[in-house]
């Protein structure tokens, strides 16, 4: 497929690996965080870590939308479906995330709650139109890539004067989470980070200019990269060069889809519909100031939080689950005692094992396979 296959060329990947090997200073370490779950997935799927010199270490970041959604938010969604008898529409990824009391959206559905999986938030709007006698809530989650579609359907619901449709908004912001990661660098458990592989499609929406303040303040290079393996390799090479030169700049490897301004139209719609929350509780990161969006009061009738007076209670993760430390980049999936034993994609204990963008799921699906092939003794 065009714009996909060329960016997965194995020959070029090996060439870039050689260029990286030639560029690294063997006397130092390069600790690079890939913020996005999409990059985590690509790195695991294509075994990119294996192509890198041992002193270049990739650290998974918190950019997996399902993973950072705290249990309390899923509990609220389940409560809407079970106590308010609404039709709750949700993206597939959230269905299997473990919630309180051994529940998940999928289990609540099996117990009779009307929970429907939608591919697009558009579908949620259609379900509301088709069921005028029922109340329909869309459980909105995700970073800046899924936020503009949510804004678009809220505006559409307003145009259609739908009275039975609302949105439970959990949209979160990438730059705020990056700031939080840098602010917690003093934590003794934190791994020092030398640079960031910046988000791909999030940057398509917000623009590369959004990281300029971050880079100036924290003096860490950010290289925005596409999601294909060659994109990631090239971005790593660009980061290594910046670090070697002592530079900290925003560079853009993904010029085919990212401009400095980003998608102005999408930004405008989001601005119209959403405003900043003072603070938001992230799984793993905890309370992060100015890191999430809520629906503006002009659109209150489409805001499920207002309409059903939805509260939020913080709920701790499963005791054995290391998702929180993994999302902060402090631990790796294999550091979790139940990884691949009690916790698997079929029976996830934590959110990082649910989404294909989650670090644990990516390691389970692609990483374990490599371990088995390369060192069967370890697995016995």
């Amino acid at each position, binding site marked *: 497929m065009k714009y996909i296959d060329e960016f997965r060329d194995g020959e*070029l990947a090996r060439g870039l690996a050689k260029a990286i090997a030639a560029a690294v200073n063997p006397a130092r370490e390069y600790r690079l965080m890939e913020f996005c*779950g999409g990059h985590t997935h690509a790195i695991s799927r294509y075994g990119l870590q294996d192509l890198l010199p041992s002193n270049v270490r990739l650290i998974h970041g918190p950019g997996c939308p399902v993973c950072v959604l705290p249990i309390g938010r899923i509990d609220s969604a389940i409560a809407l479906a079970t106590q308010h008898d609404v039709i709750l529409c949700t993206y597939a990824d959230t269905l299997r995330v473990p919630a309180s009391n051994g529940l998940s959206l999928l289990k609540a559905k099996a117990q009779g709650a009307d929970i429907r999986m939608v591919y*697009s938030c558009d579908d949620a709007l259609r379900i509301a139109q088709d069921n005028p006698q029922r109340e329909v809530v869309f459980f909105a989650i*995700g970073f800046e890539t899924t936020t503009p579609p949510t804004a678009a359907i809220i505006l559409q619901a307003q145009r259609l004067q739908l009275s039975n449709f609302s949105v439970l908004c959990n949209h979160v912001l990438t730059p705020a989470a990056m700031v939080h990661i840098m602010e917690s660098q003093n934590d003794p458990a934190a791994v020092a980070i030398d640079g960031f592989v910046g988000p791909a499609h999030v940057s398509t929406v917000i623009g590369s200019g959004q990281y300029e303040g971050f880079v100036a303040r924290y003096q860490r290079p950010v290289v925005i990269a596409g*999601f294909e393996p060659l994109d990631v390799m090239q971005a790593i090479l660009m980061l290594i060069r910046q670090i070697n030169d002592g530079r900290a700049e925003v560079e853009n490897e993904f010029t*085919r*889809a990212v401009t400095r301004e980003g998608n102005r139209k999408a930004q405008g719609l989001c601005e119209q519909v959403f405003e900043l929350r003072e603070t938001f509780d992230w799984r793993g990161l905890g309370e992060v100031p100015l890191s999430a969006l809520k629906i503006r009061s002009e659109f209150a009738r489409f805001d499920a939080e207002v309409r059903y007076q939805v509260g939020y209670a913080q709920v701790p993760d499963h005791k054995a689950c290391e998702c929180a430390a993994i999302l902060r980049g402090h631990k790796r999936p294999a550091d979790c005692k139940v990884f691949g034993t009690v916790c698997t994609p079929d029976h996830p204990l934590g959110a990082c094992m649910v989404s294909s963008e989650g670090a644990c799921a990516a390691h389970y699906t692609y990483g374990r396979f490599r371990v088995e092939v390369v060192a069967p003794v370890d697995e016995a």
Partner: protein
Amino acid sequence: MCLAIPARVTELLDGDRARIELGGVHKDVSIALVEEVAVGDYLIVHVGFAIGKLDPVEAEETLALFAQMAKIDPANPAPYQ
């Protein structure tokens, strides 16, 4: 959720929508979030909405840059054996 890959526009439809093709699969998506979409454009689609367009000139330049970085002549690949 964020693993969207570029899809080609095959037809413009009413109501800010377009038909796209991806590896032989056709789908209708919203183009309400992007400006000036034409048949043949490649779109980045998330959850049923195009959120950006692909710039073909930049794509070619990036591929050329990879080849240069990897010191491989695109017309004559595989010097590393």
